[in-house]
């Protein structure tokens, strides 16, 4: 397997990240002001046309990249952190506590992310960026926790852990210096794959009106609004759709490339 996927992934994610960073400093138009006629086709002044309120569509898609990436990064960080902590704890827990935690995780995983998100939104003040991150991050943490639990158990069964215990290392030090470094590569790839799913989950949430409120519209919301005018202004669906695909595809390529890279190292090590 070549490094090609990794580079394509890096390029696509880099492009989206670049656009997202750019929106913090500069936007082509004010996202809340009328910039031209309603539902204009693409032109030099408005490369993606305008929406039914006459607002510039490129501006909206650019802001969408920022929302998608913030939710993705936030959820990945939250899910990765909670998942890793829970997983390591479960691996160390007494048999009964471990079984209980494993069952809870299975139930959480079986629960659809969207339903969980609706619960979180219903329990809080209303939909916002924070609720989206919390809901997706929680759903993700269950998947990561289950993986980390298995990985940790596998590492704990290794001789070098027994050797470390024989030399008088406490459990805390063993987790920090031996367990975490050894499970990290696999967890990293899993989190990267979950990142892509988180972006899609965020788009679905905002499509249902459970994501970030306007004017910081995410791609899912743009898709939902453009639904009724899809034949008069197809750009309204095509632009955010392509943007979503480019980011998710990029993240998955990146994760695949990363896995190949790490696998290659493992293969090399085992060959010796």
């Amino acid at each position, binding site marked *: 397997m070549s490094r090609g996927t990794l580079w394509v992934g890096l390029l696509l994610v880099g492009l989206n990240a670049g656009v997202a960073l750019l929106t913090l400093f500069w936007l082509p138009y004010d996202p809340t002001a009328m910039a031209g006629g309603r539902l204009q086709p693409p032109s030099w002044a408005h490369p993606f046309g305008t929406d039914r309120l006459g607002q510039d569509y490129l501006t909206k898609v650019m802001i969408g990249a920022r929302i998608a990436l913030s939710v993705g990064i936030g959820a990945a960080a939250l899910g990765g952190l909670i998942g890793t902590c829970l997983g390591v704890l479960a691996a160390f827990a007494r048999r009964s506590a471990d079984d209980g935690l494993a069952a809870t995780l299975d139930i959480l995983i079986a629960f659809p992310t969207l339903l969980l998100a609706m619960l979180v939104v219903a329990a809080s003040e209303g939909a916002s960026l924070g609720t989206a991150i919390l809901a997706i991050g929680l759903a993700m943490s269950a998947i990561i926790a289950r993986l980390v639990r298995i990985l940790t158990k596998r590492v704990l069964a290794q001789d*070098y852990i027994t050797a470390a*215990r024989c030399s008088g*290392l406490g459990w805390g030090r063993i987790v920090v210096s031996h367990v975490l*470094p050894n499970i990290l590569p696999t967890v990293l790839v899993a989190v990267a794959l979950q990142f892509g799913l988180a972006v899609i989950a965020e788009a679905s949430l905002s499509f249902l009106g459970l994501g970030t409120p306007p004017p910081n519209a995410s791609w899912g919301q743009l898709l939902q609004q453009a639904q009724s005018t899809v034949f008069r202004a197809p750009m309204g669906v095509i632009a955010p759709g392509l943007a979503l695909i480019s980011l998710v595809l990029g993240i998955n390529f990146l994760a695949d490339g990363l896995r190949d890279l790490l696998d290659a190292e493992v293969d090399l090590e085992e060959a010796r």
Partner: protein
Amino acid sequence: MSLLRLRDLTVHSASRELVHGVSFDLDAGQRLGLVGESGSGKSLTAMSVMGLLPPGLSAGGSVLLDGQQVIGRPDRQMVPLRGTTAAVIFQDPRSALDPLMRLGDQLAAPIRRRAARDGRRLTPAALRDSQMHWLDRVSIRDPERILRAWPHEVSGGQRQRVAIAMALACGPRLLIADEPTTALDVSTQAEVLDLLDGLVREERLALLFISHDLPVVSRIADRVIVMQNGRAVEQGDAMQIFTAPRHDYTSGLVAAAQRLQAALEDAERRP
């Protein structure tokens, strides 16, 4: 007071008993060999001393390590004893070293812990001196390279030497060697055995040497306990066990070793 005193040690799983009442004493400067086929309970006996039996197994009887009862002691209170009173060398240094940590960092860990225990402050220069000292003690020729290397980048013999250095750097008084030469090729085996022999003498350690290989054990140990199916079937002076075994099982082991030796010599004589 012996450094290590086992009285009627038993190890059992949920359903059956695996080690049935092993007793012995071990003092500083003494070398005791535990011999037996795999599954005879010799490793379980050794790990009971460290309080590190595999999950699901429990020990009974009495194990006094430096006067402290190990059986039934909470794990948290075992931690200070491990490494400082007794340290272990394992069979396969490939799996006994963390694959994702440089050898230098792995060797630094016991040195730092020993310094912390003695209440000394360890400067980076002192740490490096100490690392070099221990690598020199285990006769590693290019210590600079070994310190920077990953475990998979060095040979099996070098890995085992680093593992021995790590065990000794804790400053133990009892060294438990669990089949330390089994995973090595024959010429490296002899080197590592000689090395262990010298180190144990110079550091005045007590040695508990575990192996299935009777000739190897008789070479390094003064006293030998032969184990079979979780029982100590014969116990005595290493020379006596090898030349005049009393128990059938031991004679079998000795005869097998002699047959192998004879076959090897025979093969050497024929061109």
